[in-house]
């Protein structure tokens, strides 16, 4: 019996990345910029918005993280990481110049080819702005390839809003129709950030052409139902609503089983699913 070996020996073997800078986005979310160590620079590490990578730390372990940077800005990999467990606690102790292991990219990512020329509605909740930043930057860097760009972002409070200065500044841009909200307490930002759930922002979105629009959603599990309900009011087809979902993952390549939903693996067939998938697969949202 003859088998073909995987041509990428690094499937399970991370390559080493150096932290070149980091800053706090919120009290518990930190933004990391990584570049490959010299000997790995030749590797083709192209990726798509919406894909994820497995981050490894010596002696602590490995977990999946969405890529926050855009493939249009090559060379630097960016991640927004929330301090939420053993591995991320350790990642928060790292200093500039420290090393992390990285493998991937994995997952399907957003179907950019099908989105070209379309109007794009992006809806982010909380940390969902991290993976959607990759898509946002991709569209902004290729602005002429897309139609309208509408971005709705809801966070718990102003302290928990990711990339807040960037977003507030972007409010004046004519490249994007951007609306921001927080559940409670917009003191100091009354002019730029509303109060209320992200679903309240849909009232500003009018004149949607359902045949020519694709919606991309990412946020906490509870958010999807309510946001999808709002999007469906615009008569978008169910396979034009894209949801970027989260699951536990150990391998990233369809083997360990943890991310399985029905017969599909979030790491292979996702993490970007359509609302049509959601209706036909139990447990998806």
């Amino acid at each position: 019996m003859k088998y073909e070996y995987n041509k990428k020996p690094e499937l399970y073997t991370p390559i080493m990345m150096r932290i070149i800078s980091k800053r706090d986005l919120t009290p518990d979310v930190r933004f990391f910029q990584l570049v490959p160590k010299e000997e790995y620079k030749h590797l083709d590490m192209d990726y798509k918005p919406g894909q994820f990578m497995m981050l490894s730390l010596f002696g602590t372990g490995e977990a999946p993280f969405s890529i926050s940077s855009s493939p249009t800005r090559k060379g630097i990999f960016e991640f927004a990481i929330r301090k939420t467990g053993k591995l991320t606690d350790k990642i928060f102790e790292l200093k500039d110049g420290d090393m992390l292991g990285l493998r991937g990219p994995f997952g399907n990512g957003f179907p950019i080819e099908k989105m070209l020329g379309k109007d794009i509605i992006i809806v982010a909740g909380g940390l969902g702005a991290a993976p959607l930043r990759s898509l946002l930057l991709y569209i902004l860097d290729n602005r002429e390839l897309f139609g309208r760009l509408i971005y709705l972002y809801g966070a718990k409070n102003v302290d928990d809003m990711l990339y807040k200065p960037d977003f507030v500044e972007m409010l004046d841009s004519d490249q994007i129709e951007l609306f921001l909200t927080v559940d409670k307490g917009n003191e100091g930002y009354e002019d730029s950030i509303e109060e209320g759930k992200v679903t309240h922002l849909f009232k500003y979105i009018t004149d949607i052409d359902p045949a020519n629009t694709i919606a991309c959603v990412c946020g906490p599990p509870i958010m999807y139902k309510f946001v999808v309900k709002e999007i469906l009011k615009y008569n978008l087809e169910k396979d034009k609503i894209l949801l970027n979902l989260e699951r536990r993952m150990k391998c990233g390549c369809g083997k360990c089983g943890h991310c399985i939903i029905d017969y599909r693996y979030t790491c292979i067939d996702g993490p970007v699913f359509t609302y049509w998938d959601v209706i036909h697969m139990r447990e998806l949202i």
Partner: protein
Amino acid sequence: MRVLKLAKKDEKKLYSVLVNFGEVWSPLPKGKRFSYEKIEDPKDLVLHEECIRTILPVKKFLMPSDFNILSFTPQQFLTSNEEIPFKVIVSVPPCEIHAVNILTKFYTTDYVDNYYMKRREKLIIIGKSGIPDEYCFCHKTNTSIVEEGYDLFFFDLGNYYLVWVGSEIGDDIVRKGSNIFDENLPKDVSQKYVEFRKQKNNSFINDVELEGVTDLMELMYDADFWDEFGDKCLSCGQCTMVCPTCTCFNIIDDLELNKELGHRRRYWDSCQFKDYSIVAGGHNFRESQAGRLKLWYTHKLKAFIGHFGSPSCVGCGRCIVTCPVDINVPTVVKKLKG
């Protein structure tokens, strides 16, 4: 295909031929059951008349229950270059060979898993068709006959074994053992073969009927019996450990005491464990045991068909003899049929 015979009087010489090709492993008694063990004494190599259901299936050779996939230092990750010895596994029943074929399909889809493939290439499978016991139901999963995936395959036809050659290595083995493998088949071989098949087919007792279960999994997804099973289930995960087609694993890092070297371990995990689907922040996508049971049975009886064209249950009966609270494919199918 090459077919030969091995006279039963020469059975004891089989070991001396096989040992030229690698370590010889075969079922040996362990308590009241059997386990694939390394054969050191040629006398221990016994070809049983019945199908031998070992505690753990052949998957233990292909995806060890716990092994290092990488080592690492603070500076770099090092891919394991572990030498895998050739192993000759003797007396593998047809259902288990089907299971290995399913594993191979699974491990080569989307991404090829080199850890599995390295071991598969070093595994020589000597299959044997045996007489089923009361738990076997491979006749209902279409896995009682096997066409590929073995190197040699034995049928017990009275005073000799009929030996099918299924691969180049199998051919090498019969050449090496030209003193015991004989190409001259008796005239009545087809009659004997038909008799054996008849005897085998008539020996099946387990009459679980799998017809339509794929649709029934869908129709009965919200049925109350899942909660009854969920209340009863101990979440011990033994069903997944003994299942020849279960593949889930977990990965963790271990540091050596000097903290300069570490190892990334991959070990069997179970979708029946509560923490299986927990994500960062503590959200559990499968909180209830009933939900986790549904995942397993959906995967075995329905989902795998969507992905690979056949169910991933091969009817080996391990879940029946292993589950301490009687939740297994036949009892679930019975409930599905109402």
